[in-house]
């Protein structure tokens, strides 16, 4: 018999029967067409139970009066309870379950299943809902799935990693503590056995498959330290902000691109529109390098007016770029 049929039959009979069944009961029913002795069949049954457990279906073991062992799947543990959601909660939950649909993350599959389950009682919640989706770059999909597995099961993961400042990759074994995305990139945070400390790994610098440790799959390989917080790892910045006080910078934008004055990462303190359509904005700048990079992207459509440190930085870059381009002619 096909394994999938056998697993459906096993689930069906354990769910349907009010009282626990013994292995002998199962041998003469679900396993009756399987070849092999009692020991082989028992092993097959154990593997089947494991497989169901992997899916979240718990086959419970019940001691019976005459020293025999009974097996059952309890309805309360199996069936989806009624969530009894208010209309606004239904909408919220539908929007949440849709966020990762087609996202290219390991969340996509579970998101779809969750959406189906919620729709079973609550109906489809489509209308009057602005859809929002979260999309990940496709190249990170497989690494993400493996890291998620290691993270959820607390298993060591191994991969080959090339740090930005190294030309050769090195093999890493890591205890995956957390995962975050920042500026469109995924990062893994974990205890690195090679370096012996907490490290942050950018996923697109992983140059091999990520392997999850398969030794004793049911027991975790490590504990996550109690004081571990993903937020503090994720608030790490590159490049590290300089030891400067925040500077206030003024920038004038040409009318054409004035609308985009607030698209950067620096906080806008104030802005005013000039008669000619240009716009002058004041920013609180924590990271001058990054701020100058951003202003330069506007090309001639943005000009830093003050402070002199920043205009100096801009002019220096421009002179460098000009000299380099002229030299190449």
């Amino acid at each position: 018999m096909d394994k999938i049929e056998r697993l459906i039959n096993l689930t069906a009979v354990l769910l349907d029967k009010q009282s626990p069944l013994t292995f002998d009961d199962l041998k003469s029913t679900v396993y009756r067409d399987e070849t092999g002795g009692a020991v082989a069949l028992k092993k097959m049954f154990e593997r089947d139970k494991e497989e169901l457990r992997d899916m979240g279906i718990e086959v419970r073991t019940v001691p019976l009066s005459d020293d025999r062992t009974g097996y059952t799947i309890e309805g309360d543990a199996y069936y989806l309870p009624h969530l009894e959601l208010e209309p606004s909660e239904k909408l919220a939950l539908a929007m949440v379950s849709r966020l990762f649909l087609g996202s290219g993350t390991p969340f996509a599959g579970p998101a779809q299943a969750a959406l189906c389950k919620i729709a079973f009682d609550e109906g489809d919640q489509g209308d009057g809902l602005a859809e929002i989706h979260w999309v990940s770059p496709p190249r990170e999909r497989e690494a993400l799935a493996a890291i998620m597995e290691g993270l959820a099961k607390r298993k060591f993961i191994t991969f080959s990693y090339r740090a930005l400042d190294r030309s050769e990759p090195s093999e890493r074994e890591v205890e995956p503590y957390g995962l975050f995305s920042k500026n469109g990139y995924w990062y893994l945070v974990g205890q690195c056995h090679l370096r012996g400390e907490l490290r942050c790994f950018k996923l697109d610098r992983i140059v091999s498959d990520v392997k999850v440790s398969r030794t004793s799959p049911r027991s975790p390989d490590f504990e996550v330290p109690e004081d571990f917080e993903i937020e503090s790892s994720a608030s790490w910045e590159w490049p590290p902000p300089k030891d400067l006080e925040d500077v206030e910078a003024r920038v004038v934008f040409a009318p054409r691109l004035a609308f985009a004055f607030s698209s950067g990462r620096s906080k806008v303190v104030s802005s005013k529109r000039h008669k000619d359509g240009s716009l002058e904005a004041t920013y609180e700048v924590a990271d001058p390098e990054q701020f100058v990079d951003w202003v330069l992207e506007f090309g001639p459509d943005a000009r830093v007016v003050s402070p002199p440190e920043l205009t100096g930085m801009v002019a220096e870059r421009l002179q460098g770029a000009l000299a380099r381009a002229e030299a190449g002619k």
Partner: protein
Amino acid sequence: MTTQTRRLQRMLLMVPFMTGEDGASIPELCRRFGVSKDELMADLNVLWMCGLPDYTPGRLIDFRVEGDRVFVSMADYFARPFRLTREEALTIFVAGRALITAGAFPRKGPLSTALEKVAGALSEGEVESASAIASRIDVEMESYSSKWRTIIEKGLKEKRALLIEYYSYSRDEVSEREVDPYTLLWSHGHWYLLAYCHDAKDDRLFRLDRIKSVELGAARVEGDREEFRVPALVGEYRPGRKAHQVRLRFAGVEGRRLAEKWPAAKVTEHDDGSITVELRTRNLSWLSNYLLRFGDRVKIESPKELRRLVSGKASEMLEMYS
């Protein structure tokens, strides 16, 4: 998880939808579970072999197809779906947290009470482990405070076309377009509007912070889009034959960082630590602006046109600063 487990999971989830008196619509099942009609029929043919002991015809799961509806009987024990798994709850918790951070929902409100009800539907051990894992995953999503948010959301909800003025970064020009909005996307650290562009006659992504203005159009957006193909974002962009071949040489690691932004770029490392990055692009304008930040740390080896653009822009801008 193996393909077979995934299929089993799908089948167990599908059966409850078909056991009701009215059965289920086949096209709707296919859409909901992301399968073709053939795959659905194959699943039904497996189910048809399953049931309860003694596995005589009267004890096996049965199905019949009438028109485009399918009816499953003799499967009362599968009349309700399996409860939410830990992975599903985890996904909902992570997504919920991201949407609250993004400001799509208030911290205290329908979403937080709904999440509590989801947690209530899990066993104690699972709530604990799902929320513990969720707390170690931080999915970045900025709040989309674009001043056009209300009007874009109105277009999405009411399925109305939008008239937008959009700044194309690569072409360095602002143009007006009529678009049919489908959804908002967060990707690569930015918010995008995914819409069908009537001018390009194709799906396009519009970065919210490059939208200069939006007006609600009169036209209704036709049809429901259940599936959409996310057009190539920056980085997955595959330029055509007309693209310029660009070769840049960087003194140090910044070249590799740049190449990470464009995975299609080819990187060659030299013994002196310098790095050559080769990439293709249809428009040089954006790249000339982008390269200004590197000052003298990049050498433009080709094309000449890019070198001319950079030197032109740099000298024009230096005059502004003198």
